[in-house]
């Protein structure tokens, strides 16, 4: 393979100085760590913002936050969590670290581009953080940034704040494009001998399809951001009709606010799956490894990822049922949205069927994986309410929506992130994370988030609208406000508990128990590296050769309870056929 040869040549230039090794690094593993640490750092900012918001909602008389700051915190919390934490962490962090190792490559195909991707990402984060310091502060338009509101005077940060936000998004999209091109090309071109597409671990499949989706979806957000910048600064009217804002008629006419919503959600809905598909992939591997059992229905799982990825481009307007678009669209988008539930349900069944008749080790990564399934099932099922247009009409823009998306694309993916970090930490550092701290953090986070978001659905059923700074309405009983206070207290506890995780990560990186190269007894290639952490070029003198799929656990007749992918097949009858040679083979009982 050409790419393998060129990567071999690359190895002769192993960087030596601190700067080239850890700062201007082109090694996918270092870039992955840079991406991850930056994402976690900016995620902590978003976590603090959510705490401040919750204090206002739970203790409205505290006067800690005023209405302007509330809306600014709300906006930044949402945007950071979705884009700058989850997207960056799954693609830039996990994707960067795991793709080359899992497909048996020495590095990404375009290492220099990979480095640029991180530095553009860092700049986008810095620009975003800078918006806290511009006149009037960051934008308070909500993470959906709907115009005209985002660029008119009644919204905090409608001058500088929104421009820094849009600029930061544009830079982020440049970074994500460079990264995603790399991930897609590496998966397609740099797989080692024997690593067919249908032998790839589901982690790679999830990140691979999510990267393709990022390449197709982010451009819609990019043009929307550029068009809004032009509306705000150059007097164009893409999204701006003739309006009177703050008592003055603005020099715009003829634009369409709905156009922005279509562009935003054409990006925004695939974005949900850009976060979810890597989580699906990672969690499949966590469950299979720690249940010591092959993933159930691998082919179905791969096709489900591909189909979900494809369908997710045809459901965007379910976010717009009550936006004022033609009501007839509701029929189409309700159908496409509920159809996507079928492959998603298949994935859930296959996870729990993987547990069935397994040898379930309740390790910390497994706890997070099971926590993910519970949370994701709740979040996925409430999606059936909101996707079904007639049920969405009363629930739209209420706390039901807040509860739904936090469960399905906030908490669920974050639980996978925690599980994934616990699982791959030994490969990255050569040390285990502390088990007791890990369990404590899991229980507080999993139960805490459930107690926060489960009752919140019912506030939505009651009719409490979201994005309210204060609730002074007759139909909202005092008990609902008391519930808000309770939720705030739990949220603050959960937020504080994240210190346990950070402490565990930092402490274990230096003092953790040495792990050896394959502490979980896992089959996939990243656990078979000659060194742990893997050296520059990953594989030493020769890249590995792959002979089987990634899920040979407890194979009948095998001596150990796992068979690495590098292990040759012993005879033609062995291996239960999950290679490309017999893709449709049946006959397992």
């Amino acid at each position, binding site marked *: 393979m050409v790419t393998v040869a060129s990567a071999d040549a690359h190895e002769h230039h192993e960087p030596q100085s601190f700067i080239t090794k850890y700062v201007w690094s082109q090694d996918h593993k270092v870039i992955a760590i840079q991406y991850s640490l930056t994402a976690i750092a900016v995620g902590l900012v978003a976590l603090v913002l959510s705490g401040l918001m919750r204090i206002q909602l739970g203790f409205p008389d505290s006067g800690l936050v*005023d209405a302007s700051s509330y809306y600014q915190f709300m906006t930044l919390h949402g945007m950071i969590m979705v884009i700058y934490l989850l997207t960056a962490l799954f693609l830039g962090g996990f994707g960067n670290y795991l793709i080359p190792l899992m497909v048996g490559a020495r590095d990404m195909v375009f290492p220099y581009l990979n480095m640029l991707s991180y530095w553009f990402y860092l700049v986008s984060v810095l620009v975003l953080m800078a918006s806290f310091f511009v006149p009037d502060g960051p934008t308070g338009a909500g993470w959906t940034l709907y115009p005209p509101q985002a660029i008119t005077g009644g919204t905090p940060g409608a001058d500088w704040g929104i421009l820094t936000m849009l600029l930061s998004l544009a830079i982020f999209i440049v970074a994500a494009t460079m990264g995603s091109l790399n991930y897609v090309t590496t998966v397609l071109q740099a797989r080692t001998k024997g690593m067919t597409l249908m032998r790839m671990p589901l982690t790679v499949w999830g990140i691979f399809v999510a990267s393709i989706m990022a390449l197709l979806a982010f451009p819609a957000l990019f043009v929307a951001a550029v068009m809004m910048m032009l509306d705000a600064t150059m007097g164009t009217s893409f999204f701006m009709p*003739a309006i009177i804002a703050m008592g003055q008629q603005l020099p715009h006419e003829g634009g369409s606010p709905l156009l922005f919503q279509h562009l935003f959600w054409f990006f925004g809905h695939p974005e949900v799956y850009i976060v979810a598909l890597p989580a699906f992939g990672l969690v499949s591997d966590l469950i299979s490894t720690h249940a010591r059992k092959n993933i159930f229905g691998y082919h179905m799982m791969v096709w489900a990822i591909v189909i979900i990825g494809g369908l997710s481009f045809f459901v965007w307007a379910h976010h717009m049922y009550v936006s004022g678009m033609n009501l007839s669209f509701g029929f189409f988008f*309700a159908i496409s949205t509920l159809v996507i539930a*079928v492959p998603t349900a298949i994935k859930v069944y296959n996870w729990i069927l993987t547990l069935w008749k397994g040898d379930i080790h309740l390790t910390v990564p497994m706890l997070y994986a099971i926590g993910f399934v519970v949370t994701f099932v709740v979040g996925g099922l409430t999606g059936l309410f909101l996707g*079904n247009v007639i049920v969405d009409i009363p629930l*739209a*823009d209420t706390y039901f929506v807040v509860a739904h998306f936090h469960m399905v694309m906030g908490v669920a993916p974050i639980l996978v992130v925690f599980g994934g970090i616990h699982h791959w930490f030994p490969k990255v550092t050569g040390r285990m994370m502390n088990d007791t701290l890990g369990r404590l953090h899991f229980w507080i986070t999993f139960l805490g988030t459930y107690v926060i978001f489960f009752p919140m659905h019912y506030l939505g059923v009651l009719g409490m609208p979201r994005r309210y700074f204060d609730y002074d309405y007759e139909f909202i009983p005092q008990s609902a406000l008391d519930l808000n206070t309770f939720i705030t207290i739990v949220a603050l506890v959960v937020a504080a508990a994240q210190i346990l995780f950070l402490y565990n990560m930092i402490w274990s990186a230096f003092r953790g128990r040495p792990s050896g190269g394959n502490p979980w007894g896992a089959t996939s290639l990243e656990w078979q590296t000659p060194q742990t952490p893997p050296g520059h070029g990953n594989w030493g003198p020769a890249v590995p050769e792959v002979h089987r799929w990634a899920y040979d656990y407890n194979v009948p007749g095998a001596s150990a309870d796992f068979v690495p992918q590098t292990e040759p097949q012993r005879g033609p009858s062995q291996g239960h056929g999950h290679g490309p040679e017999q893709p449709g083979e049946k006959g*397992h009982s």
Partner: protein
Amino acid sequence: MVLAIILTIIVIGSVAFHLLTPWTLTELGSNWQSMDAMLHISFAITGVVFVAVTLFMVLAIVRYRHRPGRKAQYSPDSRRLELWLLGLTTVGIVALLAPGLVYYYDFTRTPDDAMRVEVVGEQWRFAFRYPGESGQLGRTSIEHVTSDNPLGLDPGDPASQDDIVIPAGGDLHLPVDQPVELVMRARDVIHSFFVPEFRAKMDMVPGMVTSFWFTPTRTGTFEALCAQHCGVGHYNMSATVNVMEREAFEDWLGEQQTFGEHLAALGDRDEDDEVSWGRELATSEGCMACHSDDGSRDVGPTWLNLYGREVTLEDDSTVVADEEYIRRSITDPRAQLTKGYPPAMPAYDFDDDELDALVAYIRSLQDDENNNPDAPDTNAER
């Protein structure tokens, strides 16, 4: 084992919470029982799936958790089981979707006999308009908007002459058991009109007209609120909906002034030039976005009866709102902040004579109860 027990508690707790929760639907006030019915069907079907999936995991954890010597079964897939699950899921989805779409069809079809009422959103208030005897809402344009014509009706359109405008701050009145089509506009940003008891809601989008329909089914007053983030005052944007018996509604409607009568009254208004200029300034400079002239609470204090009144400041001291105080509040708004209002106002840099005009206008805003002989007619009408 701990995990299995806690997951079981989560299942039991969630179901119990659902059955016992005090936080549930408000009493229905419209024809959309179908939305409630579909909500309950959705809870039932998804609840069964949630319980089944979670308890299946509990069972798996109990039976197949690691013990020394345990071996997992090697079973890559089972086409038959997968097809069964695929089929069952599809049935569940169809059971949700089919009735949902049938009911949604009703929502997309406005009845022919629906009464049209217009709702106009602006930051952060709702205004309303009835079509009057012609049955037609007159043309509107943003260019016609002034403080005397806040909804921008075209004075030249005959259909607008008999329209009845309820300016921002007023209530929406509706007759019970009469299908209503709300046609909606927004003056500035996107808003949404949502009465929780009516269930249905719809965004109001500047630059276009949106609509939805419902039939109020019980009399009483309801809170309408904005459900689409519309800026810093979003959470305060609300109105009262008064659903009345048909006769009471007709009586109320008959008492309202038509747009034509309103224009005629304006023509007769005997007003000082300085006051007029102040009114124009207040409109064109954006003061009225945050200060009302009719006593209603907005982002900033109302101007009605402000002049000469005692104002409580943030530090609990008081000051009389005289000319000096008002001028300072415009040029340096944070110097003497009224208690209970956010420090949201930017400092304005007006010329002296402009300030005089604004003060004169504010001074003129006294309603009848204050017995000010200068009070202009328009305010009494509101």
